[in-house]
């Protein structure tokens, strides 16, 4: 009798493993970026019915009439102007080998911000504009810039400026690795981390428009369209890398290195779900 019981138990265990413990992936579990983007945009437009879709790129300035007036005044003498001028000069100055940034990008680097980041099928990874700029420098014998300092902010400010008004047009090619990168970016966005147990979504999905101390939290929709930004709190310009790493440290998490895969994937996800919204960078924030 006992061997028979063992046999039945083993058969049940096998059946549980084969059919129960590992359920087949359902269609609901499969990433669907287009549906995600629709749901993402609908969430914000439902939450803020008075804000036009394209105005979400103005972050906290779109949330409140008083702040919007402040922003309009600020835009007459925008604090990012110095960075923009520097970026334009840097962009047009040839490297020591005589080549320039224009040689590294389609359309000589003008009006192309809306296509970044993209998934590079050769590399099998996401390539951001900041990464592409440093790769351009290194390919031409120049040292890379810090991803979180003024030079990178200036270059990306200029490239964003030449793309203003163009809608984000992030593509996910028919490559499972691209879909995986998108999915990982989404997972990073919603995953709580740091001692404060915050995810990106905690502030930028659950609480946009609310105050965290003196700051008004920006909505996640359109949040990268305005990058890089001049932040009064920083007293200077900040790149996307700077924004991501400081968000992590503000939640008492140790930031990853700028342009680590997680941040590249996060930028891919966040940009994709803002497809259709115009580039507004460089921006200014309180």
């Amino acid at each position, binding site marked *: 009798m006992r061997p028979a019981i063992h046999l039945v138990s083993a058969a049940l265990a096998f059946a549980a493993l084969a059919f129960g413990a590992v359920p087949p992936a359902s269609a609901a579990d499969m990433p669907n970026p287009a549906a995600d983007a629709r*749901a993402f945009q609908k969430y914000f437009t439902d939450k803020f019915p008075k804000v036009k879709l394209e105005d979400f790129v103005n972050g906290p300035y779109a949330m409140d009439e008083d702040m919007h007036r402040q922003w309009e005044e600020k835009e007459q003498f925008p604090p990012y102007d110095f960075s923009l001028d520097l970026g334009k000069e840097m962009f047009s100055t040839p490297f020591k080998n005589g080549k320039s940034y224009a040689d590294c990008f389609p359309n000589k680097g003008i009006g192309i911000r809306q296509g970044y980041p993209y998934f590079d099928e050769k590399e099998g990874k996401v390539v951001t504009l900041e990464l592409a700029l440093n790769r351009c420098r290194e390919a031409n014998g120049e040292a890379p810039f810090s991803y979180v300092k003024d030079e990178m902010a200036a270059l990306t400010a200029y490239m964003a400026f030449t793309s203003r008004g163009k809608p984000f047009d992030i593509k996910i090619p028919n490559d499972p690795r691209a879909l995986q990168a998108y999915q990982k970016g989404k997972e990073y966005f919603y995953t709580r981390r740091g*001692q404060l147990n915050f995810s990106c979504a905690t502030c930028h999905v659950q609480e946009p428009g609310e105050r965290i101390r003196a700051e008004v939290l920006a909505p996640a929709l359109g949040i990268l369209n305005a990058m890089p930004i001049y932040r009064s709190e920083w007293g200077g310009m900040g790149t996307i890398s700077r924004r991501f790493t400081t968000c992590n440290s503000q939640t008492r998490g140790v930031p990853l290195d700028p342009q680590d895969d997680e941040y590249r994937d996060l930028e891919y996800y966040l940009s994709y779900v803002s497809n259709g919204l115009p580039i507004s960078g460089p921006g200014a924030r309180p």
Partner: protein
Amino acid sequence: MSISRISALSLGSALLIVCATAALAAGSEADFKAAYAAAEAANKEAGLLRNQWTTTEAALAAAQKAADRGDFDQAIAASKEAEALAKASIFQSTSEKQAWKALEIR
């Protein structure tokens, strides 16, 4: 009991106390090293999960600083705090593998 015998006993007791104290101090340093190693190991595991906390690092640094000045009680306490923080960050990473989905906009 003669005075000389009492003195010998006192001296013996004093020596015992000195030896015991020295042994306790040595034990404290060893305890610190063990506590610090456990905290470092947990923080390393959190690093593999890409989720270290700045507060863990601060507690580890405070532990090392206390040990450097010979305050092993404080060093052990800070090491244990660091280990607890690191284990909390590991728990967070593990639970978030599924829990993140609850926040997702659908």
